[in-house]
């Protein structure tokens, strides 16, 4: 049986390969939206900050985690909305044409 660290490394390496494989060919039109969307996904660190903020005490660790939640939420909410706005512009004229 593998330890959690080894499992983590397996998962990490395989996920890297998936990431490499997904982005083989991509039209230049989508470079900016893809970057922006991937950037929103990197806000997944929000999950980590939620776990870190679970104690209600007023301590340095809670304050750090609280700021982490704010930062990560800005990244997630802002990232997905901005990407959607950009992509919405491509969709707009498809309907018309």
């Amino acid at each position: 049986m593998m330890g959690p660290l080894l499992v983590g490394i397996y998962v990490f390496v395989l996920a890297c390969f998936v990431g490499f494989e997904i982005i083989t060919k991509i039209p230049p039109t989508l470079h900016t939206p893809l970057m922006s969307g991937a950037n929103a996904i990197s806000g997944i660190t929000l999950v980590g900050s939620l776990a870190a903020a679970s104690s209600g005490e007023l301590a340095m660790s809670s304050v750090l985690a609280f700021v982490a939640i704010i930062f990560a939420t800005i990244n997630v909410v802002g990232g997905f909305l901005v990407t959607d706005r950009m992509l919405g512009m491509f969709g707009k004229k498809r309907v018309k044409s």
Partner: protein
Amino acid sequence: MNDALNNIIVPVLYLLSAVLFIFGLKGLTRVRSARRGNALAALAMLIAIVTTLLDLGMVDYQWIIAGLIVGGLIGAIAAIKVEMTAMPEMVALFNGFGGGASALVALSIVWKELVEPAYAGSAADALGGASAITAFLSILIGSITLSGSFVAFLKLSGKIGGQPTLLPARHVINSLLFLVCATAGIYIGFFSTEPSSMITGALVATIISLILGVLMVIPIGGADMPVIISFLNSLSGLAAAMTGFVLSNNVLIISGALVGASGLILTQIMCVAMNRTLGNVLFSGFGQEGGSADAGEYGTVRSYSPEEAAMVLETVESLVIVPGYGLAVAQAQHTVKELADLLQKRGVKVSYAIHPVAGRMPGHMNVLLAEADVPYEQLIEMDTINPEFKTTDAVLVVGANDVVNPAAEKDPSSPIAGMPVLQVWEAQTVMMIKRSLSPGFAGIKNELFEYDNNMMVFGDAKKVLQEIVSEVKSLIAAA
């Protein structure tokens, strides 16, 4: 019930979330499915968040709820208010927050597990050796991403100069700082035994990482900014994956690795578009080698008024418009569209030539022109349009410079030698709308300005275009 929740439901939901992230990212690589892909990724994120809250169970939610509300409001307002032209710097800023969050999570864990309980031992004793290392990496990479992205934001939004700032012996300085930072990391990881030294070590590591981020981005010249943003995006994914190792959370590891790897590939694609390597972008200040070719004096440059440009446009049968960053700055996308519509009604064949790195981000021009309702079919990529310039009557370059610089093909000593460019000089007439003769973001001279078939029209892109539009209108009315 709780066992079932923790052992089955939570891991299954995390897996679902990871799978949706992959589908979402995949969707984002095709125009047709991009919007749905983005929505899928957002759904995956929602599932991951809800699952984490389920997993936490009954805890004190006051910090969590307050943080989610504050962050959500800031993010939403920023995303809705931002101008399309300011998109690149907005993405850079968001990215910095993501990286910063990863570093803060790692710091929070250090405080919670070591400093606050006054743990008598090193981080490796309390968390395990691997977690001690990944927590440090999370602080290092996250902080570099935070400060680096912030500098990129300042450069792109013009709050600080876009030119590369080169410190003397910066490679030595960077290496030394990195060594000090790594030493601090090893110290808190394996040797520190009391809270006060732990705090000092963690602060030293954080502050030096922040400085490293600044030093990494300030030597990068404007033309390379898209590459560095993409690279920083990749780093923020990596930072999230490192946090995942500390927390043994697979969904963090998977999504972080996905972003890290795909960001690296995207960075690579952009480097290829500019004929550079990533190492070259990161470690050599742009425009340093080819000092002789830099912003030299110009000989005969012919300047024309918008009226004269309109007279040329009135007679052409085919027109290619080359948009650049100047178009974005002047918010001239709607005026360009107006001119194009006017000419198209007269039977002129109008198309737009899109250089892969025009603007401040790849795809920047596509987004901007889409906002002005320019039909997708009229946007032509560089490789398709280059052979067509020979048979084109006129090219209108709006606020672009480096991407039409013939030096890239004709002068092997130029800093941009080898970078693929739009061969606009092959056309009958080239009209360049530019604010001045100042060099572009790459900071080098453009000899196209002196070509015989080139007309310079100086002024703000939007104002010049508006004058051209009204002139063309009156010419048409007079005819």
